[in-house]
């Protein structure tokens, strides 16, 4: 019995016990089957939600494929947003997509990373009408460019703003203050 347990990877063992983990393992197997194992890196399960990283070259194809796929029916774009990681060289900017299958109740998080010097991500407006404003928001906040977007202009901030305020270099705290040394103040 002990030998058997050792031969099963720990992840699968956990999956056998937890239904959410089981579902995620199945989902991952299906993703690998559909798009190949090489398409996904950094597979992790964060608080019950399967989260995979892919590349910006592949993301559009993957989301389009998932939208059409009859078995998964991951055809509801819950939300997407940008994130800025100034410390990750060459991968400073990120787009995070949350997909949801309303028929099978599966959620999936997809992430892409790309350099801030080349802040370009594919647009999803041809697949999802709701991507329009969400991409405008990502452009507004992080300066991510979506080639092919029909109307890529600022949405929440004023049009003549000349920077992208959600980037981490724009601290909320006044940068000239010296009385606060706390690492987390003003980030």
């Amino acid at each position, binding site marked *: 019995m002990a030998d058997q347990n050792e031969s099963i990877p720990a992840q699968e063992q956990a999956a056998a016990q937890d239904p959410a983990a089981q579902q995620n393992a199945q989902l991952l197997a299906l993703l690998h089957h559909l798009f190949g194992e090489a398409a996904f890196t950094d597979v992790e399960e964060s608080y019950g939600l399967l989260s995979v990283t892919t590349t910006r070259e592949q993301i559009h194809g993957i989301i389009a494929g998932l939208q059409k796929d009859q078995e998964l029916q991951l055809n509801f774009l819950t939300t997407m947003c940008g994130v800025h990681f100034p410390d990750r060289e060459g991968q400073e900017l990120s787009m995070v997509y949350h997909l949801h299958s309303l028929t099978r109740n599966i959620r999936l998080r997809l992430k892409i990373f790309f350099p801030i010097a080349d802040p370009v991500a594919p647009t999803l407006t041809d697949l999802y009408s709701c991507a329009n404003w969400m991409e405008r928001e990502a452009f507004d906040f992080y300066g991510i460019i979506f080639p092919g977007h029909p109307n890529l202009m600022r949405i929440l901030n*004023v049009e003549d703003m000349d920077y992208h305020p959600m980037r981490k270099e724009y601290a909320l705290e006044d940068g000239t203050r010296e009385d606060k040394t706390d690492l987390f103040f003003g980030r």
Partner: protein
Amino acid sequence: MAVNDTLEGTHKIIESAREQQAHLNPLAPTVNDFNQELTTLNLGPTHPATHGIFQNILQMDGERIISGVPTIGYIHRAFEKIAERRPFYQITTLTDRMNYCSSPINNMGWHMTVEKLLGVEVPKRAQYIRVILMELARITDHLICNGILGVDTGAFTGFLYLMDEREKVYEIYEEVSGARLTTNMGRVGGMERDFSDIAIAKLRAWLKTFPGVMREFETMFNRNRIFMDRIVDVGAISAERALNYGFTGPNLRAAGVDYDVRVMNPYSSYQDFDFEIPVGTKGDTYDRFMVRNEEIWQSLRIIEQALENLPAGPYHADAPHFYLPPKQAVYQNMEALIYHFKIVMGEIDAPVGEVYHSVEGGNGELGFYLVSDGGRTPYRLHFRRPCFIYYQAYTEMVVGQTLSDAIVTLSSMNVIAGELDA
């Protein structure tokens, strides 16, 4: 779009929309040629019938809307940025100000997100109290929406009747949290105080009187000839288009899709309650009105069940690292003082991780995507605001309809400016 309440700004927007139309892009807002004797109508930003600050520049052919260019962001307050330097408990006040018609749902949704991150288990009593408050909030949210829809069609009476009832719900909020509109209700780990006897008494009294008023309201509106003529088949959207536009909540259910976060991903013990999800068929204004009305009845059912079976026990989790100790204990007890200091100063480390948690808000799936790097504040916090996502469809829904139809469509979609702009 900058300051476009000037004529110059308006022309600039039309000019840019026309440029985009020249590229023949199907998704771009369209503005037709002035030579066709069309009228440009500036609906908003502060039009009394839009119930919030957002602008639509409409191209009208007589009474018909040819195209529209929506502008939002007038009350953008950069909540996602501000949240990046606030400790978790201070972000609750930001969530209040998103959908201010149902603040408790936003508050609870945020608390549950943090609890998920921290792995705090909330006791049953607190969960039931939360359910009661969230359903009260849903009712007030729907009361506002449906009452205002009556006002926009010329029937003021129903609105006044309902506002009276909403006032009583706000008195219950007052008993529970001390506030009325921006409630800042509950804490990470549970509630800040238990239901008092007065709160229970007020709730029971309200549960007795409200159904009568609601029935009266329904009698006035549901089969009212004038009202139905104004809203049936107005601003309809198909289920496919609604899903593609990311609709959630009553607006999606009116189109016939039975998606409700409370059922699909139960949180806060929603699986314990027996209730139904009303759906419409056509996704028009009348369906949205009827779905909201029925949801009010279902919410009442949930409240009654929760109040009947309200479990005994603590009203907050035993999580001293995150739950503020009672003020009296802070003065008398060393540990309480230490925890109080650490929580208020944000000296408590959170786990590293990413959480997505969503609740069924008044208008749909209200999601919180929280990236924590272990610090005192979120590294990134993204709010999935249902209004922001579904308001995109507005132009598509009103094109080809009359101006008065556009007003009732907007009203029945229940676009809350605070949530739209965050």
